[in-house]
C-alpha cells in the first residue's frame, strides 16, 4: 500500500461512500462525539485561542529553522548511540530499513501505528524482505487481519467497520468464537498480540514529535502498544516525517497538550512515551540498537512555498472530525491515506495533481477545518489556492467544472447569450423537475441530485423580476 488507496476514480469512490449507510452513520456519529469531546476539552482548558496561537508560533519557528533543528537532533541521537539515516525519498527509507532487517536476519516485525510508514509503503517492502509484519494498534490490526483493508481515518483507522463485521473477520481468520462485544474482540487481540510482541525481532514506530535538544522522540497512544513495540524487540526503527520535531521538552509539552485534546478530547492519552537512544548499559528492557529514519519524500518541495503552513500539521484529525464533506463521503473517497481537509491539501502536494486534482474540490470552503485546527493552518485557504493553481497553471480542473466555466464564460461574455440561457433553463430542466425540485439531474447536476434535490430554476428570472418589480410583479 502506498499513500494511494482504493481503485476507481474520485466519483466512483464517492459513489461507493455515499451508498455505504453503516459507514455514513458511523462517521456522522463519530464526528458528533469527537467534535463534542474536543470542544469540551478546549473549553475546560480555557484560553484556547492563545493555546492555538502558541502552537502555531512554535510550529512556524521550527519550520523556519528546520535545517538547524534536524542537525541538532541527529547529533544528539548519535551521541546517545542511535543511528540516523536521512532519506530523500520513500525508496531510500525502505532500502535502509530493508538492509537493517537483512543484517539482523529478522523474521518478525511488530509495528505501532504510523502514517509515514503507510505513506512510503514500508510494509510491502518488509514482506519482500521475507518478514512477517504485524500492526499492533487495535484498529490497524483489524484492518490487517481483513486482508489489508485501507484505513479511513488517521486516528480511528477502522471507523468504517462495525463490530459484527469485525467479529466475522476474526472468526474467519483467527478462529475467534466469542461475541461481537468490543471488550471481547479487544481481549482476543490482546492475547494474540502478546505472543507477537514477545517473539518479534524488530519494532517499528512512527514519531509524534522528536525533541532536538535532547535527541528524544515521543509516542502518543491509549493502548500502550507503542510501549511494548519499543520495550521488547532487540532492534527498534523509528520513521519520522522530517518536519515532526520541536526544539525542547517545553514545546513538546504544548504540542502534546494540543494534540490529545484536539484528537480525542483527552487531557493526555494513557501513554505518552519519550524515548532517548537505545537502552542504557545495564537496562534490561528497551532496544539494544536504535535507528531513526528521517523522511523527506516531497516535504522539502513544500517548504519555502505557498503551502508551507501545511507542514505545521500535528496529525490530530480535528479537521477531519468537523468536515461536512468527509461526513458524507467517508475516508476512502479521498483515495489517499490522508483524508479530510488535511488530506485534500496534503495529498496533491505529496502525490501530484495528476492523481489528486479532485480533492481540493471536495470541500465547501466553509472554513470549519481552519477554525478547529490547533496550530492554525488556514486549511480552506490552502484548498482555494490549490483550485487556483489547478485552473491557472495546469488546466486540470474537473471536466464538469471546466464545461460549466466555459459555458458560463461564453454566456456571461455576451448579454444576449446569457439572456437566452437563463430563459431556456426552466424549460430545459422541465423533464427532471418535480414540483419546485430537480430529483434526477443530468450532467454535472447528477452527482448533486444523487444525494439531495436541487432547486428548480424559477419560472420568473431575476432580471425579469427586477424589471417588473416597480410594476407590481410577483414578489
Amino acid at each position: 500500500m502506498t499513500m494511494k488507496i482504493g481503485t476507481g476514480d474520485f466519483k466512483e469512490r464517492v459513489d461507493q461512500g455515499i451508498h455505504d449507510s453503516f459507514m455514513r452513520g458511523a462517521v456522522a456519529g463519530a464526528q458528533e462525539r469527537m467534535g463534542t469531546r474536543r470542544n469540551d476539552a478546549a473549553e475546560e482548558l480555557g484560553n484556547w485561542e492563545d493555546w492555538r496561537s502558541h502552537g502555531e508560533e512554535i510550529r512556524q519557528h521550527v519550520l523556519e529553522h528546520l535545517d538547524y533543528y534536524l542537525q541538532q537532533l541527529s547529533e544528539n541521537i548519535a551521541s546517545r548511540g542511535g543511528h540516523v539515516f536521512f532519506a530523500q525519498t520513500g525508496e531510500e527509507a525502505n532500502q535502509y530499513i530493508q538492509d537493517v532487517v537483512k543484517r539482523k536476519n529478522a523474521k518478525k516485525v511488530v509495528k505501532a501505528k504510523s502514517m509515514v510508514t503507510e505513506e512510503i509503503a514500508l510494509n510491502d517492502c518488509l514482506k519482500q524482505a521475507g518478514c512477517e509484519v504485524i500492526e499492533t494498534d487495535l484498529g490497524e490490526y483489524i484492518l490487517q487481519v481483513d486482508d489489508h483493508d485501507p484505513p479511513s481515518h488517521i486516528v480511528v483507522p477502522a471507523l468504517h467497520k462495525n463490530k459484527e463485521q469485525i467479529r466475522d473477520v476474526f472468526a474467519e481468520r483467527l478462529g475467534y468464537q466469542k461475541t461481537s462485544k468490543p471488550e471481547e474482540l479487544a481481549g482476543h487481540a490482546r492475547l494474540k498480540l502478546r505472543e507477537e510482541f514477545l517473539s518479534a525481532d524488530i519494532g517499528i514506530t512512527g514519531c509524534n514529535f522528536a525533541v532536538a535538544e535532547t535527541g528524544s522522540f515521543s509516542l502518543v497512544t491509549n493502548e500502550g502498544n507503542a510501549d511494548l513495540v519499543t520495550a521488547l524487540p532487540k532492534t527498534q526503527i523509528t520513521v519520522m516525517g522530517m518536519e515532526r520535531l520541536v526544539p525542547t521538552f517545553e514545546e513538546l509539552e504544548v504540542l502534546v497538550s494540543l494534540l490529545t485534546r484536539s484528537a480525542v478530547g483527552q487531557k493526555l492519552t494513557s501513554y505518552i512515551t519519550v524515548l532517548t537512544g537505545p537502552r542504557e548499559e545495564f537496562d534490561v528492557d528497551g532496544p539494544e540498537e536504535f535507528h531513526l529514519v528521517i523522511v523527506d519524500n516531497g516535504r522539502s518541495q513544500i517548504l519555502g512555498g505557498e503551502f508551507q503552513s501545511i507542514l505545521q500539521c500535528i496529525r490530530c484529525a480535528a479537521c477531519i472530525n468537523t468536515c461536512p464533506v468527509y461526513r458524507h463521503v467517508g475516508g476512502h473517497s479521498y483515495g489517499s491515506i490522508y483524508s479530510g481537509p488535511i488530506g485534500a491539501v496534503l495529498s496533491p502536494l505529496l502525490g501530484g495533481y495528476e492523481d489528486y486534482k479532485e480533492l481540493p474540490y471536495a470541500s465547501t470552503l466553509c472554513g470549519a477545518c481552519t477554525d478547529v485546527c490547533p496550530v492554525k493552518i488556514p486549511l480552506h485557504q490552502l484548498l482555494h489556492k490549490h483550485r487556483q493553481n489547478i485552473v491557472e497553471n495546469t488546466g486540470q480542473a474537473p471536466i464538469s467544472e471546466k464545461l460549466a466555466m466555459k459555458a458560463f464564460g461564453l454566456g456571461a461574455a455576451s448579454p444576449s447569450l446569457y439572456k437566452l440561457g437563463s430563459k431556456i433553463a426552466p424549460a430545459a430542466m422541465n423533464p427532471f423537475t418535480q414540483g419546485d425540485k430537480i430529483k434526477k439531474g443530468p450532467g454535472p447536476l447528477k452527482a448533486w441530485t444523487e444525494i439531495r434535490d436541487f432547486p428548480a430554476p424559477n419560472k420568473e428570472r431575476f432580471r425579469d423580476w427586477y424589471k417588473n418589480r416597480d410594476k407590481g410583479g410577483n414578489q
Partner: protein
Amino acid sequence: MKGTIQNREKFLNQISARLGHNDISNSIPQRSWKYHPQDEVLTDTSPDQLVEVLKTQCLKIHTSLLSANLDNLAATLDKIVTDYGGGPVVTWKDQRFSEWGLDRLMKDAWPKENIEVHEWDYTQGAENIRYAEKANIGITISEITLAESGTVVLLSDKDKGRTVSFLPACFIALIPKSSIVPRITQAARIIRQKHLDGHRVASCINFITGPSNSADIELDLVVGVHGPVKATYIIIDDI
C-alpha cells in the same frame, strides 16, 4: 558508543536552500514566544487543592485513588493487592519502598501468604521480563505527578524496568504527595532543567494516565488493551 549519521549534508542543504538560508547557522535560534497560556493553568493552587484536582481527574480515567500516610501505607497496599487477586507481584528495586516501611509486607508477609514477589534485578537480565509478563500486579513510584491530567511520570533505569508498568494486568503507582505538580508544563521544565544541568535524560520516560484503553471498535471505550486492565494510585503524605 556514538551512532552513525548518513546522508545528512545533501538532505539539509536542500532544506537550507528552500528556506533561503546560506548555510546552517551555528547559533541556537532564538525562541521568543508571544504566547504563554500554560503559565496560567492551575498555577495558583496549593498542594491540597492539587490533590483534589487529581482525585476528580482519576474518576474520568478509570483509576482508583487512595490516600495513605506512612503508618497505614502497608495496610492500604496489602488490601489493593488482595482485591486485585494477589500475586505474582513485580516491583522496581527502589530504596524508597524500604524507607516507607514496606519491607515487612513485600519481603516477609506476602511470600508467607504465597504471594510471589519479584524485585527487578538487572543482573538477571531478560529473566525480569518473564516475571513481569506472568505477573498480575506491577508496582512503581511516580517521580512527577500531574494533577490536571491524572498522570504519573516514570523514569527508567537499570533498577526500574519499563515493562513493570505495562506487562502485568494491574498497575499500582505510589505517589509521594511532594511529587504533585499542576500539569505537564512543570514536568517538562523539570526534565529539561536536569538535562541542562548535565544529567542524562532517562532512556524511557513514561507519562502514564490510567489503564490502557481503546475506542477503535465503533468508538466504544474498552479499558485494558495491550497494557494494564486496572490501575490504582496511592498518594503518600510525605509533606
